[in-house]
């Protein structure tokens, strides 16, 4: 056990947790003021429900030793996870490849919990303004256990089939972003478009909140990516600077294309571009070096801006562009890793096309992307259909018009004056 490494991963767990409120504000600023509490709540609720589910079964299904496809129930209820001597399945040294953890299993479990919290929260941006809270809560819990835990096992656990095959994903390009992105698209298809979309104006109610959320996300992402080194050394430093440069270049890429295409560089564009860059660098963060993060971030920023136009072309109401940013950005990063991966940065990785590794890694990356798309896509669609048919996934047209804040939570975000019309009941 290494105390320095442990301290950094503990810190990173807190950083990653902070991303979920950051995401909530990133999205919350983009919806209309009658739906902002609904949006914040859908995200905050994940911190409640997913954390408990992770301790009960999620961690065990993701990191237990149940073969290549899914874990088992050995660690259900965190059984034995607090034992300082516990070595998690697969995290061992075999020949030259040393995967042995230098941090306690309980710290790793806490760190991974925060990933589980934010991944389904990403979906909320696509389904903004119309999802019924009870329906979302049910979908969230089912999705975490049935979709997230297995894919985390495939990719992150050394016993998972994609890990063994040689697919690389440093911090969650497939597990987090492609997974949540395709799930978002499926739930949108089941839910349908918002009343009045795309004809009626649905402008963001507070871009300052969105920019604040972007700042929190960017800050927390250092824990997400540099923490995934699971050590406090050179690799964490490389992952951190890669993360930062990709966010910076993503912003520049988005703004450049936006300025040329639409005529203005917007604040929402700056925020969106930074997030697109962060998404794309996530799988690559600890496997690339040099100027690769700038290239990856810049491409992601420009391409994601173009990708968000698809929803108007194909008529799906991905309200806050989860598909255009997280799905497309995640695919860009996962595939570009097949070109830019460099074993001189990380000996546990493989060389990509540009570093003499041929097409082998690229093939593995495409398999990982495809497997995630199919598994998460199909199961997310089925889950959304089941929840819609039982509990109901969408609010009534009247509730949608009135807004989620008052109809789902009996609250108003901004009580500015007008207390004259409010009276206390039962006092």
């Amino acid at each position, binding site marked *: 056990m290494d105390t320095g490494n442990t301290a950094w991963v503990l810190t990173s767990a807190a950083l990653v947790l902070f991303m979920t409120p950051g995401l909530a504000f990133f999205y919350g600023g983009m919806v209309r003021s009658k739906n902002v509490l609904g949006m914040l709540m859908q995200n905050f609720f994940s911190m409640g429900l997913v954390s408990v589910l992770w301790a009960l079964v999620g961690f065990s299904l993701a990191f237990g030793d149940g073969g290549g496809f899914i874990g088992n129930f050995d660690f259900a209820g965190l059984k034995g996870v607090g034992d300082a001597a516990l070595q998690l399945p697969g995290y061992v040294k075999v020949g030259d490849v040393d995967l042995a953890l230098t941090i306690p299993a309980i710290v790793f479990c806490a760190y991974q919990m925060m990933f589980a919290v934010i991944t389904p929260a990403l979906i909320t941006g696509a389904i903004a303004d119309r999802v019924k809270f009870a329906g979302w809560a049910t979908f969230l819990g089912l999705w975490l256990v049935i979709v997230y835990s297995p894919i985390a096992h495939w990719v992150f656990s050394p016993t998972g089939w994609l890990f063994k095959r040689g697919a690389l994903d440093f911090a969650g390009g497939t597990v987090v972003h492609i997974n949540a992105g395709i799930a978002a698209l499926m739930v949108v298809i089941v839910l349908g478009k918002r009343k009045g979309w*795309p004809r009626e*104006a649905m*402008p*963001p109610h507070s871009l300052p909140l969105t920019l604040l959320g972007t700042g929190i996300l960017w800050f927390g992402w250092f824990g997400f990516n540099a923490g995934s080194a699971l050590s406090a050394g050179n690799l964490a430093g490389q992952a951190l600077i890669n993360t930062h440069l990709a966010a910076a270049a993503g912003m520049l890429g988005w703004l450049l294309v*936006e300025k040329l*295409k*639409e*005529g*203005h560089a*917007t604040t*929402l*564009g700056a925020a*969106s571009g930074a997030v697109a860059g962060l998404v794309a660098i996530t799988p690559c963060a600890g496997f690339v070096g040099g100027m690769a993060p700038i290239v990856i971030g810049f491409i992601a920023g420009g391409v994601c*801006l173009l990708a*968000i*136009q698809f929803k108007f072309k194909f008529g799906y109401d991905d309200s806050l*562009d989860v598909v255009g940013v997280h799905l497309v950005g995640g695919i860009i990063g996962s595939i570009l890793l097949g070109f830019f991966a460099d074993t001189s940065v990380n000996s546990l990785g493989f060389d990509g096309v540009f570093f003499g590794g041929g097409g082998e890694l690229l093939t593995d990356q495409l398999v990982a992307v495809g497997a995630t798309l199919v598994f998460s896509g199909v199961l997310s669609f089925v889950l959304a259909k089941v929840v819609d048919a039982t509990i109901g996934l969408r609010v009534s047209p009247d509730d949608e018009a009135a807004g989620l804040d008052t109809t789902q939570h009996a609250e108003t975000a901004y009580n500015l004056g007008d207390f004259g019309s409010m009276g206390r009941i039962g006092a």
Partner: protein
Amino acid sequence: MKLVTAIIKPFKLDDVKEALKALDIQGMTVSEVQGFGRQRGHTEVYRGAEYTVDFVPKVRVEVLADDADVTRVVDAVVAAARTDKIGDGKVWVTSVENVVRIRTGEMGPDAL
């Protein structure tokens, strides 16, 4: 008695208020309003989705004045609110049948 109603650019409110104070006007009412005139609105773009915003924010100033003071009030407002650019707004005058000061019950010109 007359009611002078002015629609002006919001940042001109302070100038108009000072000009009216200089005339010894006893009161004014201000509200934030929106609308369009020849200036029209503007366009906004959010992630490529373009919106037209038809209404521009303006400030409405209302002043009650004695018949003898009306011309001076209107002239003061016009002079203070003018920037010579489109969207400066309008001033109009309407007749007022009666005015009551609520506290005292005074009526007509005495209530101004």
